[in-house]
């Protein structure tokens, strides 16, 4: 079976450091894939390679059968992949509404724009993540978890077929993790394909359908969450990774 996203023998090194080493994986349409690994395993680098922020040294990335290797970010986004960044990248002088609105604007300079339809998309995305009451606020007035929701709303508003969520729970309190989990759960019920990166396995387990674990840029294990959690290789990789990894499994 061919997945919606396929990575084939992807490789990326920075000087002498090999960050991603011949990684292959497939994401099936409609699934939530947990993409985990200890800190420094190469998860964010893989996201950067998919989104065109970095060019791979070797390997191929295909999305819906189309080779998107080395495409610039805006082309990848327009092809149907959106990324939710680990750190919020909002426009501080714009309202929450205007921040989401940018994602609905066509890249074509002279394209006819249906303003109403665009506003509708912004409202839908805002509502989906639970920011409908905050649309006229400046992002700086929002709490941390709401900023994470804003990032998700911005990604949703681009109309993606695949969402890449980069550590959506990082820096959040237990209560906030719960709030963001509810949003991700909503996305799952809408049938969206999601790849979720985190180094904290416990937070992910109840959200994901399948897990891929990487370590030192290579695939270590793949399977159902409970299988992977009990895999001795995974446990060893996490124990070798330090304190963070006490949270694993």
């Amino acid at each position, binding site marked *: 079976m061919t997945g919606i996203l396929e990575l084939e023998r992807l490789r990326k090194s920075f000087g002498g450091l090999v960050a991603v080493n011949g990684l292959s994986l497939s994401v099936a349409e409609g699934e939530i894939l947990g993409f985990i690994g200890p800190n420094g395993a190469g998860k964010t680098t893989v996201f950067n390679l998919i989104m065109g922020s970095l060019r791979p040294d070797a390997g191929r990335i295909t999305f819906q059968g189309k080779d998107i290797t080395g495409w610039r970010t805006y082309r990848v*986004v327009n092809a149907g992949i959106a990324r939710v960044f680990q750190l919020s990248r909002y*426009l501080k002088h714009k309202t929450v509404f205007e921040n989401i609105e*940018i994602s609905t604007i066509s890249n074509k300079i002279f394209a006819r724009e249906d303003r109403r339809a665009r506003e509708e998309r912004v409202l839908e995305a805002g509502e989906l993540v639970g920011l409908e009451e905050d649309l006229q606020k400046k992002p700086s007035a929002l709490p941390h978890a709401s900023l994470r929701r804003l990032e998700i709303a911005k990604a949703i508003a681009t109309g993606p077929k695949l969402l890449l969520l980069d550590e959506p729970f990082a820096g959040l309190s237990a209560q906030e993790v719960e709030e963001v989990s509810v949003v991700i759960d909503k996305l799952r019920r809408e049938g969206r394909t999601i790849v979720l990166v985190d180094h904290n396995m416990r937070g992910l387990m109840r959200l994901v359908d399948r897990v891929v674990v990487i370590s030192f840029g290579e695939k270590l294990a793949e399977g159902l969450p409970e299988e992977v959690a009990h895999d001795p290789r995974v446990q060893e990789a996490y124990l070798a990774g330090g304190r963070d990894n006490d949270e694993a499994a």
Partner: protein
Amino acid sequence: MRERAGYLRYIGYLFPAGTVALLAIAPYLLVHRPSWITILTLANFFAVFAMSWDILSGYTGQISFGHSFFIGAAGYTSALLNVYLHWPIWITIPLGTAAAVIMGLLVAVPALRLRGPYFSLVTLILPVVALKLVLILSKFTGGELGKSGLTPLSSVTSFFAHQRALYFDSLGLMVLVAIFLTLIARSKVGKIFEAIRESEEAVEAAGINTAKYKILAFIISSFVAGLGGAIYVHYWESLIPSTILPLTLSVGLIIAAVVGGMGTIIGPIVGSYFFIAGQEYVKEVARSSSSLKFLERWDVLIFLVILILLIFFARRGLLPSLYALLRRFLPTPTPKRSK
């Protein structure tokens, strides 16, 4: 969706409309002070240049320190074609403008790879290089003295009528440029420009090709600067490098845009009038009384101190600060629900 206090929306329209109406009757109010008509004409041209800077630097955040390069490229092209080939100005002005746009494109492409101070340094060097070229090719360009005998903008021969015609030409140009750039600024293109200024990465992640829009900003900016520059040399009826190429022009129009309000289009007009007319006013005060005569040599200095104070106390610029003040003192209607 955009909710602005009702008062401010009306002031937003009334202020420019009232200003244009006042400027339209200004020559008739200044019949006994004709030198001021010339000063206002220069302020109009300056405003066109400042607005051209604003759509690039104020909106996209790519700070150009050498906008006189585009003004000069257009001015030289139009003037030299007019002087050597005797082409009429309705051909040379569009060709001059086109030359500025080509220069804009030539600068835009490498500028995409440069950020912050590196980009600004390149723009700073360009008019210096252009000025050197003008001097090296002085046989052709006229060097420091330039060229005279250009076709005038107005064929009226009476001094006052001629002066008034030039004033209205410059005012018409300024108003048209202000409308053109305001329409762009309020369109989706303007929204993208502003978003690029804040976070290029966020815009690219929204599926927008930032390189394309940055080049577009250069094209629009150099087009307006070029149009102004090509017309400006015919206003002077002579090509003088010190009027269209110096760094002081580039720096002056940045000051005008910053003082008036960067990223507002109308702000740079306010700033230009403040900068050009303000300097002249200080000179006039100095000339009015013997006890104030000492000010004559201090005019620029005094004005620069005023500018520094303004930047310090009204950092967003005069126009946005004025709006902020009104917002504070006028009752704000309850915003409508977003849905």
